[in-house]
């Protein structure tokens, strides 16, 4: 079943800026999807349209429910973490989650709220006013708010911006657990290593248009034009002339070689051995998602 259906969605703002052009894709239930795009590409406009905050042309369905004609069911199946930090200054952290649960008609969910608070490392702030929280804490509270009703589809719009490394790891552990439990997740982030590690599907958007949609493995496989780099560090700083045609750059005893295929590695090692050059360190650097993303952007 499709968790999310985006059918030819376009969005033109009042100032005639066309933020989305016929965006069209599906996300299967259980997928963990990375939505990638530079600032202003249309990611947040698309998410706001799915969340029912933006007007748009086209059709969006969440778990089969149209977000315009079947709005209540669609929203009940969706949890969105917005990009901009927002909080109710009159409430404590726990009250925020309790009232938010009420808006989804959920009651008697104390143990789940406590689990979310622990997952977001906010349990010691449960009775603190939201005004006293740091930026990172407020962002984690927003993640918690999106989860109060255990939505099958979760959209996270840059949830880790301003969150420190340790807490970010804990947050991803919690989100990964939700994914394993069957939740469908759509994530936008500028930390591409997070997408590379967590997501199984990638969607790329640029200037309001989808420029790529594929599984992560297919996307990497399709990136044949991008080089694999062999990084070699030698003891003596010597380098055989016969391999200089593969050299991309060098820095003291460190050499970066361009590989067309992994079969070349053995030949390179033989060549180094024949020249009597000992290797101190060696790495094979495959194309990263960032390289693939930049390739698709044509930048």
């Amino acid at each position, binding site marked *: 079943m499709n968790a999310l259906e985006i059918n030819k969605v376009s969005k033109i703002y009042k100032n005639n800026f066309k933020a989305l052009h016929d965006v069209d894709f599906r996300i299967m239930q259980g997928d963990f999807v990375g939505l990638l795009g530079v600032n202003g590409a249309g990611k947040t406009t698309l998410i706001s349209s799915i969340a029912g905050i*933006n007007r748009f042309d086209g059709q969006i369905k969440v778990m089969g429910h149209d977000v315009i004609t079947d709005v209540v069911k669609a929203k009940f199946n969706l949890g969105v973490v917005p990009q901009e930090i*927002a909080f109710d200054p009159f409430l404590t952290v726990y009250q925020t989650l309790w009232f938010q649960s009420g*808006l989804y008609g959920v009651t008697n969910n104390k143990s789940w709220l406590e689990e979310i608070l622990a997952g977001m490392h906010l349990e010691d702030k449960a009775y603190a006013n939201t005004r006293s929280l740091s930026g990172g804490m407020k962002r984690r509270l927003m993640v918690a708010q999106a989860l109060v009703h255990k939505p099958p589809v979760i959209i996270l719009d840059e949830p880790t911006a301003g969150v420190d490394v340790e807490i970010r790891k804990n947050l991803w552990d919690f989100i990964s657990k939700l994914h394993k439990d069957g939740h469908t997740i759509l994530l936008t982030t500028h930390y591409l290593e997070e997408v590379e590690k967590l997501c199984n599907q990638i969607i790329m958007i640029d200037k309001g248009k989808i420029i790529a949609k594929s599984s992560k493995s297919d996307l990497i496989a399709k990136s044949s034009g991008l080089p694999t780099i062999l990084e070699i560090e030698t003891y003596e700083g010597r380098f055989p002339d016969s391999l200089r045609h593969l050299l991309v750059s060098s820095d003291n005893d460190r050499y970066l070689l361009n590989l067309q295929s992994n079969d070349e590695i053995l030949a390179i090692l033989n060549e180094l051995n024949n020249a009597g050059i000992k290797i101190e360190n060696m790495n094979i650097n495959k194309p990263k998602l960032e390289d693939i993303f930049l390739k698709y952007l044509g930048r």
Partner: protein
Amino acid sequence: MPFFALIKKEVYRFSSIWVQTVLGPLSTALLYQLIFGSQFSVINTGLENISYSMFLIPGLVMMQILLNSFGNSSSSLIQSKYTGNIIFVLMAPVTAFSMYSAYLVASVIRGLLVGAAVLLGIVWFGSFHFEHVWAIIFYAVMGAAITGGLGMIIGIWSEKFDQLAGFQSFIMVPLIYLSGIFYNIQNLGQFWRKLAMLDPFLYIVDGFRYGFIGHANFDIVTGVIFVAIFALVINFIGIILLKRGINIKH
């Protein structure tokens, strides 16, 4: 139900700042009563056996009901828009009708609570009766629903705090102050009386006062119909604006 959850949240919001939302209006009403009720007690109301203090008290109570009901919905909406937390209501499975109704009910609750507090606070300054309890309840609820609805409309439409402040200072407050709270409009000259009769709040104050003193300047049945239609029209406009997401959805 989301509707009741939103009402609870809104009631919690204004009750958590009760010094501002309840004590403040009570203090203002007490000052008016002290200055006008005590010092100008010789003013002739033009009504037999009705002292100025008996005339003034219902007006002061209604003034606070109208102002506080307006203030609750308008300030809550514009604050939520300004801080961005309105997004959590918009993203929840709450229909525009439920959202509007919940904000309106919370505004009416605040208006009635403040009205009751003001009545209890100033009741000691003059003797009065409850001549027609139905009229007191009807006009209090309708008055709060009308200004609560106006607060919704202005809260939805306003993009800046000064738009809200402008409406409140230059339209709401003059209309309420000139609606016969402090004086009997029958004592005005013909021109001013006809002008005053264009003020819709006049009929709310007149009907509410009728509940206390048993005397109304206008036909009470006409007043009930007018006020009920006025409340329906204002809130119908408010629901349409919210449903369309005017200045809320982009």
